[in-house]
């Protein structure tokens, strides 16, 4: 079965991104597919490569980057939500005249259409938020 997953809250502040991560790991272990995870609202903040969590805490961004690489998961950060909150990739930074970008490896910035497409193409959609 194909699961689509939405993460609606930022890392560390809410448990949502952690629960989503454990759900996806378990879904993959059970033989299901998770072709895409969509990060919306404050969820876009999961995709920054600038976070430096304490050494005795999990690194939420790194967990997702690693999982996505191993299982070819498309980690999509919503462009509209990301712009408001200051999550940019190199293209966006150039386009907006910003002198830096902060997107993490394995994440890509794209439009809300990717969320709808995920809803159409997967069998179940799960939302993790606040």
């Amino acid at each position: 079965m194909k699961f689509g997953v939405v993460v609606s809250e930022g890392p560390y502040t809410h448990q949502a991104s952690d629960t989503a991560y454990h759900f996806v790991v378990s879904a993959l272990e059970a033989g299901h597919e998770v072709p895409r995870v969509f990060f919306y609202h404050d969820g876009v903040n999961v995709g920054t490569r600038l976070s430096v969590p304490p050494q005795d805490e999990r690194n939420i961004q790194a967990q997702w980057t690693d999982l996505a690489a191993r299982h070819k998961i498309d980690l999509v950060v919503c462009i509209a939500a990301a712009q408001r909150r200051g999550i940019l990739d190199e293209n966006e930074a150039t386009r907006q005249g910003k002198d830096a970008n902060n997107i993490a490896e394995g994440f890509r910035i794209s439009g809300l259409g990717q969320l709808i497409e995920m809803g159409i193409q997967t069998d179940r959609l799960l939302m993790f938020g606040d």
Partner: protein
Amino acid sequence: MATLHTVNKSPFATKALQSCLAHARDGDVILMIEDGVYGATAGTDLADVLAGHSALKIYVLEPDLQARGLDTGRLLDGVSTVDYAGFVDLAATTDRTMAWL
């Protein structure tokens, strides 16, 4: 055609569980996760909230229970525990998932 409802808020803090219960239909499944697990404990002022919903299947995510120091012995009658794999199974065996955020 059952729905899996996920509730991640403490019923002592928000109205999410109550609204979920008011909209769930016979045969639906409710899974309490994160701070939502507090809604599954016995002996509280809100224990009655779940009463009268025997046509629902109520689950609680055990890793979230353990994190909060709640022993399964504290659970209301009729509430079952699942782990993350069980959560996946519930999502796969119901027809849709609805998050009560």
